[in-house]
């Protein structure tokens, strides 16, 4: 066989008899994307004056705030969210107990609520974690509003309007996603 013919033969070998290791593209069906996202949620700092009416004479033992919250309304979240962790960090410099209620609402109707968080007076580093499994608490996916209520312990003695003590509330959410192709 001439050299050129040999070369052509070898080239043909490459062309027609190349190999490929066995691959299983169906493995992608088993892939589950499991990102975990952290995001800040609500926060506030209040002083005794925030518990008084506009005249500054009558103490209100409860104040609350509600905001719209659409983060759980997207289809992706509804389809793929498996767990929510809600972390709370609180500093209570008040001289009395403060109770925090966190409610998840849909058109002002409660769909999920925390066990009330009770923080004793002068507690400076209080941590609380609420773990919510979506499978057993799917109603939380209907959340459109978040309401937080701060209630003062009724000691029979009014707070000092000019006391600079602070009650500080911070929170974040950790979202556990599991999605597949």
């Amino acid at each position: 066989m001439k050299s050129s013919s040999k070369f052509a033969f070898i080239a043909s070998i490459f062309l027609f008899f190349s190999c490929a290791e066995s691959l299983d593209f169906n493995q992608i069906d088993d892939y589950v994307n499991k990102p975990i996202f952290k995001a800040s949620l609500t926060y506030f700092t209040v002083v005794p004056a925030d518990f008084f009416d506009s005249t500054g004479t009558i103490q209100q033992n409860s104040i609350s705030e509600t905001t719209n919250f659409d983060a759980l309304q997207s289809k992706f979240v509804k389809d793929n969210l498996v767990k929510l962790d809600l972390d709370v960090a609180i500093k209570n410099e008040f001289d009395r107990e403060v109770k925090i209620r966190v409610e998840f609402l849909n058109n002002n109707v409660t769909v999920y609520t925390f066990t009330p968080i009770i923080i004793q007076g002068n507690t400076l580093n209080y941590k609380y974690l609420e773990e919510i499994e979506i499978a057993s608490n799917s109603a939380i996916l209907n959340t459109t509003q978040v309401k937080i209520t701060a209630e003062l312990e009724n000691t029979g003695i009014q707070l000092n309007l000019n006391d600079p003590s602070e009650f500080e509330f911070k929170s974040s959410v950790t979202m556990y996603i599991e999605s597949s192709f």
Partner: protein
Amino acid sequence: MKNIIVVVVFVISTTIFSQNKQVLYDFGELPQSLLLNPSLENNYKLHVGIPILSGFSTQIGSSGVVLTDLFAVDNQNINDKISQVLHTLTSDDFMMINTQVELLSIGFRLNDKTYLSAGFYQEIDAIGYYPKDFFILFSEGNNAFLNRSFSASQIAYKLDVLGVLHAGITKKIDEKLTLGGRFKIYSAALNLESTNNRGTFTTVQGTNNIYTHYISNVKMEQRSAGLFDTNDEIIDDKDEYIRRTFLSGNLGIGFDLGITYHFNKQLKFSASLIDIGFIKHKKNVKNYIEEGSFIYEGFEYEFDPNTNRDFWREINNRFKKELPTVENENSYISWRPTKINMALKYSFGERRSEICYDNSYQDFYTDAVGAQLFSVFRPLSTNVALTAFYQKSFSKKVHAKVTYTMDDFSYSNIGAGMSFQIGKVNFYTMFDNILSYENLSSANSVSLQLGINLIMN
């Protein structure tokens, strides 16, 4: 069939290699070599490429990941494999594909010092860098990455589908020097590109709240031309894309330049600059630009009974204001990826004569060795390949070439090609990275060129 699937999936799911055609370069006086360097000499009187069959080339490559990394049958969990690949990738890893189909190729000798050539080919050229940070954020979230900045600068891609009409001249100045030039008109059917992006996303321990999220110094732009019709619908008619490659797309111009210099009868230097040009995209343009910075700490409740604030809407509105997405249809210029070829070739061996177009005889050597350098300018980097080659002419009609190339994908890339002529019909075929044909699934790159020409000496 399995190999075809592998190649197709490779094209779709990964990336391609640079447009290096190291086997074809200065090989066997093939007419297609003129597209790599218009100054390369030949002794043809006339050549005509067989339409569609005269020149087909494709190159596919992926740095950093191969198919077996993900899809090998190895009883490993696919989640673990994907995670491992993502953490192995670097921001310089990329996928590329380049495919050219020559529809027309003709050339004829004007006189003993001048050869004219022209043609038309269609090309798909795509490169995409792996946006490692985006992939990790998407697949793992930010939970484990406090204080880490996820960068948008890694998002870079460019896709061109175009037709190229060209005409060139190869001019022998004297016995030592030959110059060449080629003028090109580009007709782009589709361009998608996003380069020079910047910006970061970072989550840190906060002061006012538990975390603070920073989206900082963002400027991202996604340009497209030819993808959307006038009704903002995506054009899904393949024939429309093909039609626009025939001078009815967005037009541009470019040049190729080449030089060949003989130090003596055996030592030759050649070099070329290919695709010095641009395309002006002004039809079916749609661009998106995101620019700005955004800081998010959560909603600050005020417990003010006199206001009824919607904090969620306020955050959304502030986001849209501080990091807006602007859509426009402004025309833009897209530069072609300019390529550089350089080669030093030393011929030796048996000295033979071949008949030329004017019935004179020209000496040639049966063997040659040399080195080639290839470089292409890409969005995030310049890709370089260095090649050593050995070339053998078995007769005046049968030539072979073997190459060893070091590039971004491999340090063990061996290529081979052969050109032979039966009567006036020339066949050529070339394969790159032939060691990978033992297992295409684990190849970082694969390329081939083949074609048929009618050549009259």
